[in-house]
């Protein structure tokens, strides 16, 4: 099973990003998704910088994929998407049907936000050039097994296995709103929140995380305990969505898991103190996403 580092969903300072990908280059992950996938106002790294990081990672033996943004609205967003699709040095993860259209005929990765919920759509995307698909966040074991039974030849399956889940996208920037700033003058507030901005209920329970125009789960998806079920279902790639702390320890734990140096239960337990919030795995079990079943079984 391959390990992938998902696109960096937060706005980290440039030096932090560079240091992070140096560590990734030296680490055991096989696939690295790069690029700004959330907000086009984030400019610590420009497109050329991302390409430079991509080259560095490829030299280190990693498969590099450039992720497109999930929400593409403005003319400049569309222009950036066209440039991304036109470059041929690296594969692209399409997170919007506009990207799929522009990549037509070339191999690409069908990202988690394309809404591939059934066999007919999976087959269609394969026909358009997708060589890997990422299961929607809402889907669980039962859905995955059903789709895998009709998976087209040559299509790899990737599952979001660890990290805060990107659950929704809006035109509104909730981080700017929290500071009473308009999105157009957000003063790059996201940079102060390396794992997003916590939003709790009025009785003090963590619920969601505001990350600019993206809304994430406050609980952190942790499917380490389901490793055997994932393998049985034919998952080829496990995605680790980077958080600001302990990212390389998390990758190392998944590496131990796939090499049989740790049991799924032990790896799952060891991950808990490394996560920025409580763990969850509800979607995998066909339950509300915020639930934590592995925890209750233990």
């Amino acid at each position, binding site marked *: 099973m391959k390990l992938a580092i998902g696109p960096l969903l937060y706005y980290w300072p440039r030096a932090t990003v560079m240091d992070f990908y140096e560590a990734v280059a030296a680490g055991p992950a096989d696939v690295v998704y790069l690029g700004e996938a959330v907000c086009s106002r984030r400019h610590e790294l420009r497109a050329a910088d991302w390409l430079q990081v991509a080259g560095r990672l490829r030299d280190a033996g990693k498969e590099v994929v450039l992720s497109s943004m999930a929400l593409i609205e403005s003319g400049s967003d569309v222009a950036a998407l066209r440039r991304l699709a036109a470059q041929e040095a690296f594969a692209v993860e399409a997170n919007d049907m506009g990207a799929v259209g522009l990549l037509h005929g070339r191999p690409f990765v069908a990202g988690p936000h394309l809404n591939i919920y059934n066999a007919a759509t999976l087959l269609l995307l394969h026909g358009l050039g997708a060589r890997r698909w990422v299961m929607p966040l809402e889907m669980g074991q039962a859905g995955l097994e059903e789709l895998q039974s009709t998976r087209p030849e040559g299509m790899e399956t990737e599952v979001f296995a660890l990290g805060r889940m990107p659950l929704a*996208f809006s035109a509104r920037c909730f981080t700017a709103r929290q500071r009473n700033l308009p999105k157009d003058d957000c003063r790059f507030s996201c940079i102060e929140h390396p794992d997003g901005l916590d939003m709790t209920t009025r009785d003090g329970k963590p619920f969601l995380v505001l990350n600019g125009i993206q809304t994430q789960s406050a609980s952190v998806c942790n499917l380490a305990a389901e490793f055997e079920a994932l393998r049985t279902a034919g998952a080829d790639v496990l995605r680790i969505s980077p958080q600001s702390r302990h990212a390389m320890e998390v990758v190392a734990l998944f590496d131990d898991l796939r090499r049989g140096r740790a049991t799924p239960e032990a790896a799952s337990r060891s991950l808990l103190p490394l996560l920025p919030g409580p763990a969850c795995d509800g979607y995998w079990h066909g339950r509300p996403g915020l639930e934590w079943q592995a925890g209750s079984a233990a």
Partner: protein
Amino acid sequence: MTQLESPFELVCPAGSLPALKGAVDNGADCVYLGFRDATNARNFAGLNFDDKAIAAGIAYAHARRRKVLLALNTYPQPGGEALWRGAIDRAASAGVDAVILADPGLMRYAAEFHPGLRLHLSVQGSATNVEAIEFYRREFGIARAVLPRVLSLAQVEQVVSNTAVEIEVFGFGSLCVMVEGRCALSSYAAGESPNTHGVCSPAGAVRWQQRPEGLEARLNGVLIDRYGPGEHASYPTLCKGRFEVAGETYYAIEEPASLNTLELLPTLMAMGVAAMKIEGRQRSPAYVAQVTRVWREAIDSARAGRFSAKPAWMAQLDAVAEGRQHTLGAYHRAWK
């Protein structure tokens, strides 16, 4: 203002046959409805249509030269494709004027087996830019796309002027703050979402409880809001609750308010938008009739070149708005 020659359709919701009649009788050009099952993103108990009611609705609308659009706008779940494909077949044989679809696999099926059936891309299809819309046109020949409620006026104009696909926008009703088709908040909290079950913040998961701290509204146990004495309590749609961020309690995502773009109507018509959608298949026939009447009058006066957003229209719309408040949402750049 010049008189407009291009057609501009008023598309109204019908959760029942009486609502359909209310829409048609008050001037809707099109009525949209759905089957009484998971193929429909407004799959509420006691609402929607079986084959017999659809036949009656189509007969009623067609006799008055109005159109009926059928929303099949959820995503077929793994292994469940037969239900959705069957719904396409049923819609085609009932004689609907178009089907409103979100799922690409289902579009391929409709295009292949019912080539004469007109396809509209549902708002749940999440097409927010011209490249996405052109993808659906090239692959499936869609005739119309409904835009998610996240674009500014300038962005709507840019889309309209760069595609031959007709563009439909939302004019009035509940404001979805997130890009439709890209929101799993409901299933995260309560296990069911628009994409998977055609519901958001499902009623079955809602609990109200009076406590010393106030009246609490919970969704599958998650506290969405708490109301003090005299405060107006809203349905606990999870993105319209009050939460705490950085020590402050407020509507962190959006206030309870309805989208109302009435004042933008002449602008939207002039930029070439083809249709205006009214939200609310879960609402009463009286709501549908009242909202349709106001919008019919407004569109007719805009077409005649003498539009102003009359206070009486706004008052009638506010009376049925969520929290009795309205917003221009993302059409107004400052909202973002």
